[in-house]
């Protein structure tokens, strides 16, 4: 028995529901050494900013129990070089592309949206709003419903056309459904859940924070219960909104867990660092698992854990 394993996010179609997670696969070049990028539903590129960016000083990472902290600081070439080099290459691979953008001000996001509005071959835009807002004492956009919706509204206004906008939310908030509501009202077509949690590791030899920036983002299996909870809560509050789930998925079982909670697609981040084949393996395992549980269509498995809810 075969299964309809495709998924769609706000009208964008993907042959299967497994994506890379932004920042965990670069622009796909290195992973393409291990498998054809067309075997994944989409490549979500590393969040790109308006200008070239050096990122943070090292150490940028620390391993933690079943997870890791990172403070890469959005190192990247800036949107112009990115559109010149990375996107044509990705298109040549035949990969489905979701571009992730990040900014330090609402205006940055508007500029990025305008640069992207006529770029062909893009399936969706992921808007990483887990960035410090330089215009508001560095408070992360995603932690404030007004700042979050201002970003999404600016992107909406400037992107034009049909390109679905996926707002990527931070779990570091008191009530994630409040942020979800604000970005949906501002025009987000879908949500990406979850970005990393703010954490810290102190090196007990140097007796100082291990990362040069002190804090970093916690990812990996350790945070999976938080991701499942966030997806489940948001799905319960918004039965129809497309959700790209992520957070600690390392195998097909984990991906299935996020799908049952409400994810229409699942992005693979940290797991790729442990195993370059992770995303492809997960795709195969998830397909088998959906079949084994009797689903003839992937879409039927999405949010299945909510059946019978009031």
């Amino acid at each position: 028995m075969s299964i309809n394993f495709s998924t769609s996010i706000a009208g964008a179609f993907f042959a299967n529901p497994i994506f890379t997670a932004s920042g965990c696969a670069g622009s796909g070049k290195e992973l393409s050494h291990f498998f054809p990028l067309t075997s994944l539903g989409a490549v979500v590129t590393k969040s790109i900013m308006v200008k070239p960016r050096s990122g943070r000083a090292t150490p940028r990472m620390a391993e933690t129990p079943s997870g890791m902290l990172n403070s890469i600081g959005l190192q990247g070439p800036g949107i112009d070089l990115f559109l010149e080099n990375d996107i044509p290459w990705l298109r040549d691979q035949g990969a489905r592309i979701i571009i992730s953008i990040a900014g330090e001000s609402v205006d940055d996001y508007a500029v990025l949206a305008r640069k992207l509005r006529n770029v062909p071959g893009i399936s969706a835009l992921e808007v990483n709003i887990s960035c410090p807002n330089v215009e508001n004492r560095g408070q992360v956009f995603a932690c404030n419903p007004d700042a979050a919706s201002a970003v999404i509204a600016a992107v909406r206004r400037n992107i034009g056309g049909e390109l679905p906008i996926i707002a990527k939310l931070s779990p570091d908030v008191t009530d994630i459904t409040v942020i979800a509501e604000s970005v949906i009202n501002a025009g987000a077509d879908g949500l990406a859940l979850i970005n990393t949690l703010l954490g810290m590791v102190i090196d007990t030899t140097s007796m100082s924070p291990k990362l040069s920036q002190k804090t970093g983002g916690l990812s990996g299996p350790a945070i999976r219960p938080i991701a499942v909870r966030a997806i489940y809560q948001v799905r319960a509050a918004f039965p129809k909104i497309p959700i790209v789930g992520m957070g600690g998925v390392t195998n097909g079982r984990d991906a299935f867990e996020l799908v049952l909670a409400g994810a229409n697609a699942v992005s693979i981040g940290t797991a790729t660092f442990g195993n370059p084949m992770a995303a492809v393996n997960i795709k195969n395992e998830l397909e088998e698992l959906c079949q084994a549980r009797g689903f003839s269509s992937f879409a039927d498995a999405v949010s299945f854990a909510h059946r019978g809810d009031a």
Partner: protein
Amino acid sequence: MINSKAIQISAEIISNKKVGAYHHMVFSVGEMAASCRPGNFVAVSVGGASSSLVLRRAFAIYRASLRSDGIGLLELVIAPQGSGSKWLVAQDPGDQVDLIAPLGTAFGIPKEPINALLVGGGYGSAPLFSLAETLKSRGCRVDMVLGASTAGKIYAPLEGKRSVNSLTITTDDGSAGVAGRVSDVLSSLIRENNVDVIYSCGPMAMLEAITIISQEADVLHQCSVEESMACGIGVCMTCVLPVEGGDGVIRMTRSCIEGPVMDGNKVLWNKSREIPDGVWGK
């Protein structure tokens, strides 16, 4: 780009022997052994099925050889430090380990016979012995300096010693060889042996010290750097350091892809936990 020969395999452990402070481990890797060059590294998955360790560990390739009967062996020298390396050295012959190799850049091998000085700190000597053999086979003069905090941390196997013209040992505590650091003996060795190129591998502070000496002496310096790596295959951007590119622009450069072997003179040895001024995108 990623080393074009890199493959991911499940490799059987053939032997695992404690040598001083280190473990010498041999893995069966088949034909892949033939594509490993001195300076390349492997990224090893550690901890087993229900492990809390999510990242690979990087180790320099000590030696790799494809035998005529088709058996390919890859050898590592491992210092048990944290939980990952301790797990690895606790594995037994017959156990399988997931590894990706060869990764990263290799030491550049000169076409002409030159005078080379190889400098290793601690387990940093690991990639230098196969490098020495290659250089010798090209007719080079090869001198070697190995340093460590104490005698037990000098990794210098007998067969390795044979492949060099001279071996100088330094230890911080004077328990073997000259008391002091490798940098203390370099200048005179460079002069005496008319050194053209320094090849080095070891802690970042040592590499920085060697860079200064090599610049003063005006010799080339290829060093294998060691930054914390989360993926080893170029996708995470954790392993960067500021390096001047061919275009004169200083970029935060991935040491797993454009390294670990780099031109020491192009690295901005920055230990201040800051992005140095002048870096692209700062």
